[in-house]
Each structure stands twice: as structure tokens, then as C-alpha cells.
């Protein structure tokens, strides 16, 4: 198989991190490349590296410059040294990392009590609540990245017919709330201020500090929502 290494750019993120950037876009193939590189760079154990963090179409490598100071030659900065090391790794082809791709079924109750914004979405987009539920549960979403809050998953992409801009001002959101922002959908694992339009709530605990792996989702997961009743929610 011909492996073409996608085009990327490396730039500094202050003086303690660099970013590998594949362009400012939401794209499944690009995100898969990001996840493969995340696995590769995490396992590379580069000196001075504190952690590697993937996002939609870019990933950051955080490092502690004093640890790398002696390794570089005097003519170059720590950043340039790190950039070279990372560049050498990126020049090696890697297989698409399939290990993180699981299918998770997430029960969601879309009833009014748990969906403060579903009526407004229905009115704005001129679509019935039933159709919103049907469309939201019809797609299998990809978890592109985790961020914003511990365990918060950015998933995409929702049908254009239920896509809606986030609120201009954040409001208090209950843990488990399922929201839409643009073509993204996501679930608040913890109570938090937030601007996503809330259309339902899951009874599942998405972030459990007592667990060794506290977050339910991982980037790369596939997610299927299923609609449950208030009664099922209460007895979940």
C-alpha cells in the first residue's frame, strides 16, 4: 500500500510545547492521522517530553526545556532540537491506529425536563422534536477529541438540519447533558458553565475519578445514541 504522509506544519506553542498542525479542519482521515501520531509520539519517549495531546487536526508535544538543554548543540534552540526529533519520527510511516476505535452505545433521554433547548432548536430549524431525536440518533459519531472539561468528548458531525450555533453566553449545565454546537455534539461529564444547546441527558457517568481510567470516551471512539424514556432514565 502506498502511504502518503499528509502535509503538516510545526510551530511553537510558547517555549514549552510545539504543535504539529495538519490544517484548520474537521476531517476523519486527518483525525485518524493525528491519533496514529499521538500513539507513535507517546511511545517514542523523547527526552524531556511531559505529554502529547491530540486535538481535531493537530497535536501538541509538551516538554521541559531544561531537561533537553544539554542534548542540543549550541547553535540551535531546544525548540529546534525538539522539532527535528519530532520531524524524524513523523517522516516514518505509521499504520492507522485501530486500537482506540470502539463502538459505544449511549442512552439519552430527550424529554423536555432534560432538554432545555430542544424546543428552541425545533422552532429555529423548523423541525419537529421527534425529527430532532430521529436525526440525532441516526448517525454514528466519531469522538474527534477530548477537552474543555475532564472527559468532555467533541463528536461529529450532526446532520445539517439540527446544527445550531452555541449560545452567546454560557449558562449552568447539568452533568450528563447532551449538547449541540455547530456540527458538533458532545456530553458534559461534569456540571459546568457551557454554551452548547442542550437536547437531552444521559444517565451514564462519563467521568469517574475513582476509576483508573476516569473518562468513558477516548478519541477515536464511535458513538451511537439511543433514545430512552424518563422512566428508563430513572431506573438506569
Amino acid at each position, binding site marked *: 500500500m502506498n502511504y502518503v504522509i499528509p502535509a503538516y506544519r510545526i510551530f511553537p506553542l*510558547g517555549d*514549552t510545547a510545539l504543535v504539529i498542525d495538519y490544517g*484548520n479542519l474537521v476531517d476523519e482521515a486527518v483525525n485518524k492521522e493525528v491519533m496514529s501520531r499521538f500513539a507513535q509520539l507517546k511511545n517514542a519517549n523523547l527526552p524531556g517530553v*511531559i505529554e*502529547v495531546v491530540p486535538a481535531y487536526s493537530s497535536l501538541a508535544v509538551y516538554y521541559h526545556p531544561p531537561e533537553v538543554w544539554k542534548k542540543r548543540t549550541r547553535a540551535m534552540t531546544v525548540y529546534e532540537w525538539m522539532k527535528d526529533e519530532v520531524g524524524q519520527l513523523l517522516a516514518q510511516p505509521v499504520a492507522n491506529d485501530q486500537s482506540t476505535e470502539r463502538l459505544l452505545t449511549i442512552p439519552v433521554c430527550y424529554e423536555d425536563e432534560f432538554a432545555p433547548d430542544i424546543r428552541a432548536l425545533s422552532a429555529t430549524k423548523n423541525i419537529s422534536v421527534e425529527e430532532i431525536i430521529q436525526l440525532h440518533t441516526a448517525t454514528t459519531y466519531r469522538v474527534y477529541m477530548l477537552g474543555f472539561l475532564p*472527559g468532555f468528548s467533541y463528536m461529529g458531525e450532526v446532520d445539517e438540519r439540527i446544527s445550531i450555533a452555541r449560545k452567546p453566553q454560557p449558562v449552568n449545565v447539568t452533568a450528563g447533558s447532551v449538547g449541540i454546537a455547530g456540527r458538533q455534539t458532545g456530553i458534559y461529564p461534569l456540571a459546568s458553565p457551557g454554551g452548547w444547546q442542550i437536547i437531552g441527558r444521559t444517565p451514564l457517568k462519563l467521568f469517574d475519578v475513582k476509576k483508573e481510567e476516569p473518562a468513558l470516551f477516548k478519541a477515536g471512539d464511535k458513538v451511537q445514541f439511543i433514545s430512552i424514556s424518563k422512566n428508563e432514565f430513572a431506573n438506569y
Partner: protein
Amino acid sequence: MNLRIIKAGILDTVQDAGRYGGQDLGINPGGAMDKFAARVANILVGNDQQEAVIELHFPAAAFFFELPALISITGADFIASVNGEEVPVNQPILLSKFSILQFHGIKDGARAYLAVHGGLDVQPWLSSYSTHLRAAVGGFHGRSLQKDDEIVLKSTKDLCPLIGQKEFQVLPWKADDNWREWMEKDMLILPGNEWDRLTDISKEKLLQHPFYITTQSDRMGYRLQSDPLLSVVQEEVISSPVNFGTVQLLPDGQLIVLMADHQTAGGYPRVVHVISACHSRLAQLQPGEAIRFRITSIATAEALLLQQEQHLLQLQNACQFKLEQLLHAY
């Protein structure tokens, strides 16, 4: 032995150098706002630099020590007293049993750090003692300190013979307290990836005008106030990585500087980054104070950070030597 909180402060939490390795799950590093000061506090009392300390905001908590202890206070100067008598910052202090430590006002800075020799016996979460307030985990039961909380201290060393009959004793060695004078007044910055989104006039403004820290500033970030800055492109930034010190341009043209509790990713243009060597100074600014930005090079930023590390190492060696002498003399 216990350290008891006899009066709650406005926001006093257990912190350390931060929690790394969880950002891919959205768990932000957190940790002390002024990590340099937190490390100095530990060094002064002979602790590991990453040991848990208490970060204090003013009005700060009041503490009661059941047994003798060796403590230090660094970072902000909140006019500390032991049993009513003023004690200095940046010096180790031996306390006799039943001592009361209080703070009386802001002389300087925004966050003070209290370290106790031997450290605090708190549970780590994901290898860090830092309090994660949003997830309610880490530090002292995942929350800020309240009246009547009792923190167990790890030190088992009997300091009674050292302190003798005195109420307290300020030990004769100190950390540089002119840390804010080390560098020029300007906040040194590096251009961010979206720097070129600013119009030429806005770039000039950013480098020449003062930016005032507003009251909408906390451990997550400082919102700054100035003439609005303009962007040449309105294209949205897909959520992408940020860092401590990242300065983002908000849709209303104002800037926000990301601090210890910043989110792991952001969707606003990253126009500049405050260099690491300036983070300590940044963390000690209060609402109303002005920031002036000046561009520097990565080479300079790295050299200044290394200088800071070397300074801490020297301080650690000196303090270790003096502490060993003191502790072995009895």
C-alpha cells in the same frame, strides 16, 4: 500531627507542580499558579520541590499547629504573623507547638504559598496533589480549605529540642525576595500561531499599549481590558492545543491570558504566549494592574528559563546544607 484551619480564606487549596499525562482526556494540568514560588517554599524547608503546598489568596486562612513545625511562606507577601508577631516571607520559620499563623493584608503579590517541612499527607490523584476543583478531586478532598479542616502532616521529626522555649524562630537563610526584579517590567512574549490574524495597527497596539487585568480573572485565566484589537480573518479556529501563558483573542477584541486551570484546548486565535520565565511574575499580578508586552526570541525564553532552574538548584543545595547542619546539631 495536624495542621488545623481555624478560619477559612477566600480560596486556599492544596497544589503542586501540576498534573501531567491527562490532557488527552481533557484533564487540565492545574497546579500552583506561581510554580516558582511553590518550589521555593518547598526548598526552604528541605522538601522535594514537587511536594504539596497550600496556595493562599487574600483574605487567607488562619492555621493552628498542634506540634512544632518548620514552615516557609513565599510568593505574595500577605503580612504573616505567628502568635501576633510579624514574620518574613522567603525564610524558613520554626514554630513551637500551639502556634497560630495568620495573614493580615496584601503588601505585595496575589498568591502566597505555605510549605511545611515533611509535606502534607494528602492523597494524590493521577500522580499529583493538585486540587481539581471542577472534578472535586485531588488535594484536600478536592475542595478549598474550610474552617475546622485538619490536614495531617507527614513529618515525624521531633522539632521540640530545636525550638526550645521560644515561640518561634526565623532561621537565618533566605531565598531571593527580589524575584520580581530579576527581569524587566515587561511581560516577554513569543508570537502565537495566529499572530498574523491581527491587523498591523492591532499588532502595534498589543506591543505598545498597557493591558489592564480585570476582576474577571481567576485561576483559569486573566481577562485583559484595552482598546479592542482587530483581526484580519474571521475564520474560526478548530479546537486546538493551548498552554499556560497562551494569550487568546476573544470575539469582542479583548485578550485573555490562560493560567493554571486553563482548559486543555481552545477555539480562539492564539495571538501570543507569555514566556515561562515570566509566569511567576504573571501569577502575582492583581486586577487593576497593567501588563506591557514585549516580543522576545525562543532562544532568550529558553535561556531565562534555564537560569531560573539553575537558581532553584543552587538554592536547593544551599538550603539542604544548612538544614542538615541544623537538624544534626541536636
